[in-house]
């Protein structure tokens, strides 16, 4: 009878680190990690030594000091006496605002252009190819400056609206397009909650009602689906859904006393209403149309990745072209489209840092521009900026990855 024993284990010898393929890769990785750590350590010690030689130190105390400068677009209360930190937050919100707006419109432009690039109509197809090639082959900074320059040169100054025979007039007496920005009527509440019945709570209420409507319409659709599965006849839900969307929100807005504040020329500028600043428009438009061209290519690639047989099969079932696109092609194309779309959203967010070219007060302009300059704390400000963009980009990709996982082909 033989006894089963494990094969003899060779004792570990240091030379195995080099000659044994099981350990060699570990050795190489360890060496690479040490070299990398040394590089960083060198950079850090160099920085520290140079700062010490110059008598400087790293300190974030300046964030608590008054900023001392004014900002032209603030989504939260801000005066020149607010702290540098608050100025940075104003910048962060402005960055997020323009990034969000540009992501939405770039997606719209991109999907439209991408679908139309595959249109059977020769003219439409060529026009879209022209759009894509022109916009993605010229740097976005140039587009931002071109659009801003055209805006300031073509649109009239506010003074052109003044006097008896003014050379410019407002659209419908409500919208003024000037070279400083577009002034539109602004909504406000007369009977709402908060200070003068116009607190932020009112808008939260409106949003809550809209979310409620969304849930309700989803339930209506689900019950219609169930009914259709059961009886084969789909009940008409269009009017019911429209009612759910509009009636509650109109009632709430009426109850809160929604009124419009029209812009009017007063002194040097239009006062009242909502001002959408020229820099915001130029940046928003340039980012959307530039990134839209890239997204169009992603969309085209996604659609072309869906085999032609799918389209033909859907057509054979009698679906019309629009429904084929909406029900068969796009849902499958999304799997190809979404991953590169994430990169485009990240690009928009990062490219929004070009805002300073047109004087838009984003985080690079406030924290990385004026605050950096006035306090001279370059390293601290740049580190904070890097951290901010890193966090935002990671959040966007995390969010989009969740969406991607929901959309991708479910494999079991």
């Amino acid at each position: 009878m033989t006894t089963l024993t494990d094969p003899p284990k060779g004792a570990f010898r240091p030379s195995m680190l080099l000659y044994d393929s099981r350990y060699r890769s570990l050795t190489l990785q360890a060496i690479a990690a040490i070299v990398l750590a040394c590089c960083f350590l060198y950079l850090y010690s160099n920085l520290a030594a140079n700062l010490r030689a110059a008598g400087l130190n790293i300190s974030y105390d300046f964030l608590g000091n008054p900023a001392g400068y004014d900002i032209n677009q603030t989504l939260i209360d801000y005066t020149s006496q607010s702290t540098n930190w608050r100025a940075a937050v104003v910048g962060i919100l402005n960055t997020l605002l323009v990034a969000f707006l540009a992501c939405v419109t770039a997606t719209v432009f991109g999907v439209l252009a991408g679908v139309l690039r595959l249109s059977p109509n020769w003219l439409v197809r060529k026009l879209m190819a022209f759009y894509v090639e022109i916009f993605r082959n010229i740097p976005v900074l140039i587009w931002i400056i071109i659009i801003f320059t055209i805006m300031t040169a073509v649109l009239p100054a506010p003074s052109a609206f003044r006097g008896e025979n003014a050379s410019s007039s407002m659209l419908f007496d409500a919208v003024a397009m000037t070279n400083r920005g577009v002034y539109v009527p602004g909504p406000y509440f007369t009977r709402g909650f908060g200070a003068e019945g116009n607190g932020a709570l009112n808008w939260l209420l409106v949003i809550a009602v809209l979310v409620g409507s969304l849930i309700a319409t989803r339930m209506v659709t689900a019950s219609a689906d169930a009914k259709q599965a059961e009886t084969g006849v789909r009940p008409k839900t269009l009017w019911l859904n429209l009612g759910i969307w509009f009636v509650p929100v109109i009632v709430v807005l009426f109850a809160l006393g929604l009124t419009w504040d029209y812009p009017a020329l007063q002194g040097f500028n239009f006062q009242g209403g909502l001002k959408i600043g020229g820099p915001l428009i130029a940046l928003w438009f340039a980012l959307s149309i530039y990134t839209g061209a890239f997204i169009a290519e992603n969309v085209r690639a996604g659609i072309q990745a869906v085999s032609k047989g799918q389209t033909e099969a859907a057509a054979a079932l009698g679906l019309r072209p629009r429904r084929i696109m909406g029900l068969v092609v796009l849902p499958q194309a999304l799997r190809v489209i979404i991953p590169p779309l994430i990169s485009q959203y990240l690009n928009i967010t990062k490219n929004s840092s070009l805002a300073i070219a047109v004087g838009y007060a984003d985080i690079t302009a406030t924290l990385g521009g004026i605050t950096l300059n006035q306090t001279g704390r370059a390293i601290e400000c740049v580190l904070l900026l890097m951290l901010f963009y890193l966090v935002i980009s990671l959040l966007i990709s995390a969010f989009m990855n969740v969406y991607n996982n929901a959309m991708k082909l479910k494999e079991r």
Partner: protein
Amino acid sequence: MKKTAIFGALTIAGLAAGAAAAGTLDDVKARGKLNCGVTTGLVGFAAPDANGKWEGFDVAVCRAVAAAVLGDGDAVEFVPTTGKTRFTALASGEIDVLARNTTWTFSRDVDLKFNFIGVNYYDGQGFMVPKALGVSSAKDLDGATVCIQTGTTTELNLADFFRTNNINYEPVPIETNAEAQQQYLAGACDVYTTDASGLAATRATFETPGDHILLPEIISKEPLGPLVRHGDDEWGDVVAWTLYALIAAEELGVTSANVAEIGTSTNNPEIKRLLGTEGTLGEMMGVDADWAAKAIAVGGNYGEIFAKNIGEETPIGLARGLNAQWTNGGLIYAPPFR
């Protein structure tokens, strides 16, 4: 053991990199060229002429320093800097001296670790508006849109001025003077504010300068002067005394025309000391004995430089005002050469 050696080497390398920053005078001599930070273009103060040669009031300081140290007023590498990049350029050693109508303030001098070596132009912040606007005082500017160069002291002064007078404005931050000019002329802002000298210089380049006025209010003190890095006093002395040499030359009547012979022909001992025909001032500072004579020979004395670049005979048309010699009731004053 080996690790410690590596870290030790790294630390030494780091320290060496730090120490290499000292001794700017020797660096400049070894390089044979002075790196001088100027504006990206402000006519009269620093702008390339039709042949691409930099000219202006600030440029003259750079050329004088180059002449004093290297004996050649053209041995200058001009580095255009914006309001934002200038301090980093100086702190990092990219430039040896910054002559970019920069305001001398406490925090720049103390916190940013620079040394302002003197004042070559006493300025103040003003406002320019189109005549058609019908504004006669800065206090009438409630609600106006104001173009402003970002990263300058003017940004803070502006906020303070409007706050003190309890009126509102909308700032349009702009990177360079050229962009500001374009925005202002297109009517994207009602007012352009910066140092009064800069406004005059900018207005001089307009097609119709007469359609624009400078408002009477001067809302700040803006002593403009060249600056160097903190901690290199030998170099700071060279730049400072070159500027003083130009100022003293005007006071003593030394001009670019007579600088070659006045050193020997005069009986005034101060002129002799200044021009190096007597005493050892140059040697004390580590430059040639005739350093001041060379510096003055490039563009003339302070008065000549002023008159040639920004004086009343030029399109910019600035009066001497505060920038007259102290003997004429101004603030321009050089310590004695002794």
